[in-house]
C-alpha cells in the first residue's frame, strides 16, 4: 500500500506558523508603523498628524536633553563594553588552567552577570555606592572619610552604571573560556620551544585565535549596551537624575513615549537608535578584516 505523500510545504508552514504569525503582528507591523509614527505628532489622543521631518529636526536642533542623553549613552557604551570584554578575556585566560577549585571561581565570576539585570541588584548597587554605603564604609576602614553619594552626584553617577555593567563580565568570560579550550596546547608548546614568553604567547597566539569570538562579543555587547534600561531607571529614580547624567538613550525614549506621550518623537528616536546601531555594527564588521584572524581549515 502506498501512503499518500505528505505535502512538505503545508507541513513546513504548520510548524513555522507561530513564528510567522508573531513576526507579522509583533515585529513587521510594529516596524512599519513605528516608521510612520516617527513622521507624525502622535500622542495616543486623537489621530496622528503628518509633520514630515519635524521630530528629527527637533531632536537634533532644539532638544538639549536629547543631546545630553546621546553623550551620556556614548560615554556609557564606549567605557563599559571594552572594559567588560577586557576583564572577561583577562579572567578567562587566568582561569583557563587545570587547577583544583577553578570551577568554583568560574561560578563566582559568572554569578553577577546572571543576576545583574534584576531590580534587586540595581537596588543593591544604589546602596553600595550610596553616601553611607559599602564603598564609603570600607574606605572609612582605611582612614579615608568619604560620605559622597556616588549615584547621586554628577560626574560619578554614570561611572556607577559603568561599574555595574563591567561587574557582569561573566557571560562573556564563559564564551572566551570555551574559545580558549579550543586552542590546541601544541601551539603554546611550540611557541615556548621557540622562546616565547607568556606575554608573547598571549598576544601572538591567544588573541589572534580568539579574535572571531571577540568580534562576536563586541557586536552583541555593543547592541545590548545601547539598550540598557533597568539599572538606569532604578538608579536614577526613573528620571535620569542627577541632572540627566544617567539619562541613557532607552530611558529618555521611554520617558518621551510613556511619560510625555510623545509617541511620534519617541518613534523617531528609535529609528535614530537603529541607524546608529546598524552603522556601528557595519563599522565593526568592516574593521574586522584588519584585526580578526580566521584560521584556515586546511590542516588535518
Amino acid at each position: 500500500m502506498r501512503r499518500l505523500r505528505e505535502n512538505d510545504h503545508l507541513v513546513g508552514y504548520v510548524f513555522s506558523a507561530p513564528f510567522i504569525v508573531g513576526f507579522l503582528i509583533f515585529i513587521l507591523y510594529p516596524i512599519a508603523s513605528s516608521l510612520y509614527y516617527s513622521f507624525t505628532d502622535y500622542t495616543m489622543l486623537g489621530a496622528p498628524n503628518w509633520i514630515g521631518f519635524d521630530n528629527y529636526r527637533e531632536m537634533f536642533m532644539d532638544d538639549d536633553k536629547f543631546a545630553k542623553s546621546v553623550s551620556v549613552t556614548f560615554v556609557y557604551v564606549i567605557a563599559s563594553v571594552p572594559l567588560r570584554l577586557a576583564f572577561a578575556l583577562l579572567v578567562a585566560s587566568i582561569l583557563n588552567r587545570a587547577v583544583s577549585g577553578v570551577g568554583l571561581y568560574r561560578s563566582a565570576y559568572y554569578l553577577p552577570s546572571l543576576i545583574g539585570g534584576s531590580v534587586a541588584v540595581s537596588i543593591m548597587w544604589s546602596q553600595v555606592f550610596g553616601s553611607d554605603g559599602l564603598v564609603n564604609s570600607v574606605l572609612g576602614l582605611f582612614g579615608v572619610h568619604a560620605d559622597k553619594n556616588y549615584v547621586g552626584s554628577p560626574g560619578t553617577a554614570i561611572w556607577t552604571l559603568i561599574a555595574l555593567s563591567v561587574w557582569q563580565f561573566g557571560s562573556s568570560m564563559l564564551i572566551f573560556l570555551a574559545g580558549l579550550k579550543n586552542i590546541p596546547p601544541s601551539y603554546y608548546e611550540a611557541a615556548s620551544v621557540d622562546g616565547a614568553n607568556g606575554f608573547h604567547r598571549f598576544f601572538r597566539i591567544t588573541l589572534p585565535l580568539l579574535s572571531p569570538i571577540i568580534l562576536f562579543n563586541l557586536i552583541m555587547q555593543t547592541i545590548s549596551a545601547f539598550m540598557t534600561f533597568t539599572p538606569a531607571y532604578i538608579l536614577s529614580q526613573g528620571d535620569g537624575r542627577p541632572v540627566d547624567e544617567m539619562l541613557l538613550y532607552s530611558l529618555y525614549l521611554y520617558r518621551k513615549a510613556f511619560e510625555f506621550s510623545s509617541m511620534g518623537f519617541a518613534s523617531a528616536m528609535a529609528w535614530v537608535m537603529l541607524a546608529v546601531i546598524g552603522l556601528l555594527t557595519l563599522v565593526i564588521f568592516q574593521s574586522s578584516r584588519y584585526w580578526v584572524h580566521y584560521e584556515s581549515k586546511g590542516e588535518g
Partner: protein
Amino acid sequence: MTYANRKMRTLLYHLIVGLLALVMIYPILWMAMSSLKPNGEIFTTAYSLIPSKFAWSNYSTGWKGFGGNTFSTFYKNSLFLVVISTFGAVASSALVAYGFARVSYFGKSIWFGAMMMTMMLPRDVTMIPQYILFSKLGWLASFKPLIVPQFLGTPFFIFLIMQFIRTIPSELDEAAKIDGCSKYGIFFRVVLPLITPALVTSTIFAFYWNWDDFINPLLYLNNPKLYPVSLALKLFLDADAVNNWGGLFAMSTLSLIPVFLVFFLFQKYIVEGISTTGLKG
C-alpha cells in the same frame, strides 16, 4: 622549578584569584547579610558583614509589602507569569525550530532570514507600536501583553534548538518515515525526546528572562495586585525604603534565591548554553 617553588606559585594563584572572586560576590553577600541587620545598623556598620543580632523580622515586615498587597501576591503573579511564559516560549520555539531545521518548504529562507534579523532588532523599535496595538486591543492592565507574544517563538531559542536538531542524524527521520511516521509523528516521537538538553537550556534562560523582566510589567501593568516581584521591589523602593531598608533588602535577597537555586541545579546547561550560542545570562 623546584617543588616548593611550584607550591608557592599555586598558593599565590589561589590567593589572587580567590580574593578577586570574593570582591566580585561581596556586594551580594553584603546585601544578604544587611537584610539580617536591625534597621538602624545597616548603614552605620556597612563595612561589617556580621549583624549584632539577627533581625529575621526584616523578612516578615518586608513580606507585608505596601498598600495592602503582600509579597504573597507578587510571588504568585511572578510564578504564574514565569510558568506560562516559559512554557509558551519553549514549546513554540521547538515547533518552529523543527520546521526550519528539517522541513524544506517554499519561502523558508525568507522566514529564517526574518528570524535572524529579529534577533538583532533593538526592543526600542517595536516597543511603542506594540504598546499602541495592545492598547487598541484593550489588553492593557492585564497579563496578556506579557504572555501572548511568548507563544509565538523566541528567536534565540529557535536558533539554539535548531543547532541541536542539526546534530541528530537525519537517518533517524528516514527510518521513522519508512515505518510510516508522518513529519508530525517524527517531531513528537523521534526528535522531541532527543532534543531534551536544548529544551532544558531554553527553559532555564526563559525562566531567567521572565523572572527578571522589568520593562514589560512596567509598561503594561498598573494595578499593584498584578505586579510581579521585580516591579513590586521598585514600588517598595519608592514607597517605603527610607523607613525600612531591612525589609527591602530582605525582599531583594529573597527575589534572587530562585535564580541561585536554578543556577546551582543546572549549572552545566547554563555554561554550555552560553559558551555554544552566546546566549546572554
